[in-house]
């Protein structure tokens, strides 16, 4: 089986400081991988390098494209990479405001991505947008409201709808449940798990919440100071961590 995403030796420096160093892994279709580590460990840098938001100093990010098979997205032309970002890739930001257009209605936010891939029929776009609002449990009566009138949890769900409407195959998520209260978090986790299963999505989730990765991710990578210190099955890394830092991380979780 061809990996959907194959990351090889990705390195990003900020001057003398290391953002992330020599990260390699393969992600297969339908897999969900978590990346954990304390803040400053390089997990967001890595995610941004993979998603094409940052240009790594070295390494390859090979994506199995629908038409041409595996291609290195780093050396791809900008328009091609942007096309990927609108079709097969999706990026869920930690702060929904970064991923939404706050001055456009909820329906418009979902519809924009559809128009970017060539949909032109207003009725179809509106129907699809309404359908997706329903799937992420936003009432259809809110379709013409701006996201500024939504709560934080609703904005996050709207961002997910906007991202998934074009049926991407790979979703990058940066702290998708960060800043939400626990009941909303639970609802979002349930939603994400259902979407991953039903749409056969692959996802890479950056978070510092170990409970979130246990429930969502099949595999886990632990990062410290820009390097991957441990990787493996999620429950193996959490139940039987091998590296000193992973052991510290797992034993530092507060019990509720």
């Amino acid at each position, binding site marked *: 089986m061809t990996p959907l995403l194959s990351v090889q030796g990705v390195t990003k420096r900020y001057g003398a400081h290391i953002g992330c160093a020599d990260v390699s892994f393969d992600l297969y279709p339908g897999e969900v991988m978590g990346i954990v580590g304390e803040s400053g460990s390089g997990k967001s840098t890595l995610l941004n390098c993979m998603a094409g938001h940052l240009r790594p100093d070295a390494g390859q990010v090979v994506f199995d494209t629908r038409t041409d098979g595996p291609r290195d997205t780093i050396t791809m032309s900008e328009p091609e990479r942007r096309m990927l970002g609108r079709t097969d890739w999706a990026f869920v930001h930690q702060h929904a405001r970064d991923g939404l257009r706050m001055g456009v209605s909820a329906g418009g936010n979902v519809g924009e991505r559809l128009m970017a891939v060539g949909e032109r029929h207003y009725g179809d776009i509106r129907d699809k947008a309404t359908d997706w609002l329903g799937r992420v449990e936003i009432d259809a009566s809110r379709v013409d409201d701006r996201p500024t009138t939504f709560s934080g949890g609703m904005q996050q769900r709207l961002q997910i709808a906007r991202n998934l409407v074009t049926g991407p195959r790979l979703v990058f998520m940066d702290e998708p449940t960060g800043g939400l209260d626990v009941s909303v978090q639970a609802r979002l986790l*349930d939603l994400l798990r259902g979407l991953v*299963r039903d749409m056969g999505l692959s996802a890479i989730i950056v978070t510092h919440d170990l409970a979130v990765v246990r*429930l969502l991710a099949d595999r886990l990578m632990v990062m410290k100071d820009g390097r991957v210190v441990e990787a493996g099955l999620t*429950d*193996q890394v959490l139940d039987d961590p091998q590296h000193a830092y992973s052991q*510290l991380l797992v034993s530092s979780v507060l019990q509720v």
Partner: protein
Amino acid sequence: MIELTNVSKTFTLHNQGSAVIEVINDVSFSVAAGECVALTGASGAGKSTLMRMIYGNYLTQAGQIRIGDVDLVQAEPRQVIAVRREVLGYVSQFLRVVPRVPTLDVVAEPLRTLGVSAEVSQARAKALLGQLNIPERLWSLSPTTFSGGEQQRVNIARGFAHAYPAMLLDEPTASLDAKNREVVLSLIEEAKARGAAIIGIFHDEAARDRVCDREIDVSRFTPKVAA
């Protein structure tokens, strides 16, 4: 079906002066299809550790653990995931679920991930929940608020939803009343009859004698620690 060859495990506690604890040393045994084997030994002997090694959430330092034709010690994460989805079931002592998900969906989930339709998996889930005497009015609620015994039964229903060829059972009859214990034992007997290879930990001796074909004393493999 399940075959362990020269399996050993140590824990290294880096944050406690790099203490190295040897827990399992040189275990070899196999379990055939249709056979149920009990792991025995005093508390702390390493029964649960051995079981977790077989499930793959504890890393094995040496040896081979073969489930069907896959060696879990060497396998890639995605191979382990595939084995767990299709071949190897595990009923743990504790239920771990996404909050807010209805009991019926929790039990149906293993079948859903195998691609079985919603109707068929829900029908199977309903049958199991009914058999295990979980009142129907609770099926649409999340099991996180249930009593310990109810959670245990939901966990068992989930574990038996798919007809796994190999199963690991960690104290399946603990905290159950006589009636439900009987249901669980008959589920185990049914699984054996259809050819499942089962490894179990039972503190309940009567249950062990009834469903298990033989016993393996884990303390034999535990390195002797100077007191």
